[in-house]
């Protein structure tokens, strides 16, 4: 009997093209989003050519030499420097005063102005480079002048400041990879959502629940058949999503960013071992909630909110390291996200932990199924009053 109900629900579901396409959106968008964001990170990291239009370059040949020696390309002076920067056609424009040479020789303050647009993030990096070159130039020059006057240069610069930038490309890329567990969780929940609703709230709204219950079949067989069908639909979507990520990660230029992510069969197996029990629980929980809804639409609203749930552990992960307290293994979605993150970082999760995850999810599923079975004997649920 369970088999008959299971196959009927699947046949029915797979003929529903619109909801099927809807559930395929996630597995397609996830990997595509990953590729797109990676491209953006890579572009950010790739150094922009250091082009500097200079006004009055002829007044300061040494300074220009120093800039060129540090990798800058000096461009001819534009007619309207400020306009050029404001429109974002140049990261900055260097303006050297006509009085520069005279002031330089007489050791007065020789003015150079750097015209920048601080609101443009993409030019920050180059502006900082030029500022550092200019600062180095003026400090070197100052040191020479002090030495010429018999003073130790250190006297004028008590601090030796050195900046070490930790925002490495690896870090950014690792942050991007944390969307992988989120999408896998979502797929494991959303994949069977339509079936969960259609076979509970939908069945009643359509008026086919009463005829179904008039068959000599136990309530538990009916519930289990529907539950397994929903779980399978979720599993398929989760599998497709995982496969998509495996392919993308294989072809992403992670090595160029100095990262090593292995997502081979062993890793995929571990991720699956964590996610498959979640599809069982997700299916049960969604059916339970949908059963209380008065209509298909109402159920969709509730389950839409439920599907925000995996966002919570994902948010935690953005903030800190993956949780590995034992009690978190018994928290669905939290545990799964932890496993995926650890596997992506190259660790393998011990088998006993996977077992705890599986058993806890199975226990929750059993509770859902038992509740559903009891609900189907209630007049108020069956007749929707």
């Amino acid at each position, binding site marked *: 009997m369970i088999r*008959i109900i299971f196959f009927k629900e699947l046949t029915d579901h797979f003929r*529903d093209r619109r909801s099927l396409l809807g559930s395929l959106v996630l597995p397609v968008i996830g990997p595509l989003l990953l590729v797109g964001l990676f491209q953006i990170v890579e572009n950010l990291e790739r150094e922009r050519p250091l082009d500097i239009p200079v006004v009055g370059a002829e007044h300061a040949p040494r300074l220009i030499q120093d800039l060129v020696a540090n990798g800058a390309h000096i461009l001819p002076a534009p007619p309207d420097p400020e306009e050029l920067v404001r429109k974002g056609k140049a990261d900055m424009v260097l303006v050297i005063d006509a009085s520069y040479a005279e002031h330089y020789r007489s050791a007065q303050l020789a003015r150079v102005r750097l015209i920048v647009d601080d609101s443009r993030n993409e030019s920050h990096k180059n502006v900082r480079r030029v500022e550092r070159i200019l600062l180095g130039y003026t400090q070197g020059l100052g040191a020479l002048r002090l030495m010429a006057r018999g003073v130790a240069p250190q006297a004028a610069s008590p601090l030796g400041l050195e900046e070490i930038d930790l925002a490495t490309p690896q870090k950014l890329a690792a942050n991007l990879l944390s969307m992988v567990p989120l999408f896998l969780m979502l797929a494991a929940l959303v994949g069977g959502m339509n079936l969960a609703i259609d076979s509970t709230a939908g069945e009643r709204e359509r008026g086919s629940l009463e005829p*179904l219950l008039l068959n000599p079949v136990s309530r538990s067989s009916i519930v289990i058949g529907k539950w397994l069908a929903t779980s399978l639909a979720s599993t398929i979507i989760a599998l497709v999503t995982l496969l998509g990520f495996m392919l993308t990660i294989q072809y992403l230029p992670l090595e160029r960013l100095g990262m090593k992510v292995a997502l081979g069969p062993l890793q995929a197996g571990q991720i699956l071992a964590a996610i498959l029990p979640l599809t069982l629980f997700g299916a049960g929980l969604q059916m339970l909630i949908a059963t209380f809804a008065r209509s298909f639409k109402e159920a969709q609203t509730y389950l839409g909110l439920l599907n925000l749930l995996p966002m919570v552990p994902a948010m935690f992960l953005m903030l800190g390291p993956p949780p590995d307290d034992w009690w978190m293994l018994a928290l669905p979605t939290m545990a799964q996200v932890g496993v995926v993150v650890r596997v992506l970082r190259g660790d393998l999760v011990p088998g006993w932990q996977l077992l705890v995850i599986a058993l806890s999810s199975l226990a929750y599923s059993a509770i859902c199924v038992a509740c559903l079975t009891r609900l189907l004997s209630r007049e108020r649920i069956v007749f929707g009053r």
Partner: protein
Amino acid sequence: MIQIEGLEKRYGAVQAVQGVSFQAEDGKVTGLLGPNGAGKTTTLRMLSSLVEPDAGRALVDGIDVRRQPREALRRLGLLPDSRGLYPRLTAREHLTYFGGLHGMRRAALERRTAELAELLDMRELLDRRVAGFSQGERTKVAIGRALVHGPHNIVLDEATNGLDVMSTRAMRGVIRSLADSGCCVLFSSHVMQEVSALCDEIVVFARGRVVSVGSPAELRARTGEDNLENAFVKIIGTDVGLE
């Protein structure tokens, strides 16, 4: 054979069914007539095991519905008040699904599907998806689904609701032939003309009670009316909710 013995059901302050007893015999069409809200549907739901009575019992071929619901359901073919279909399945798949749930094997199912297609005149509907069906076509599928396991006791709640004149006539023919083949047919309706035309035995419902039972001739004689419909109105005391 269906026996209803002293069924009672209360919803909050409303006594929906009070002390209802009657029986429907094999080879006869027994009609439940009463205005909407008279307790017919609630009584049939207690018969089908979906609603638990506060008191009394329902027997199908001597089997207590409450004690052995699945045994009773095997002997019942029920067309309930709600008769939703699965729009993405074909008519044949509906019959196969419900037949399967009754434990029927493939060969028996195919034979029965062909029989029902003949009986309900739905051969050309069989392999079409239900989504585009008319009301009458849907009702045929719903009745086919209720009869797929060849039940001996057939319960139809407002079977001709929403049907056009032609379909209604065809449906009457089907109901008549089922009774003639020895089945026990219990048929509820709020349409007087339908009950007059079809039933061998009539159970008249009003305000949750059975107010009169008898053959059409007996009901006419009891009320002193020549016209059966006038007799109904006299028994119930009003024609509100009747057609």
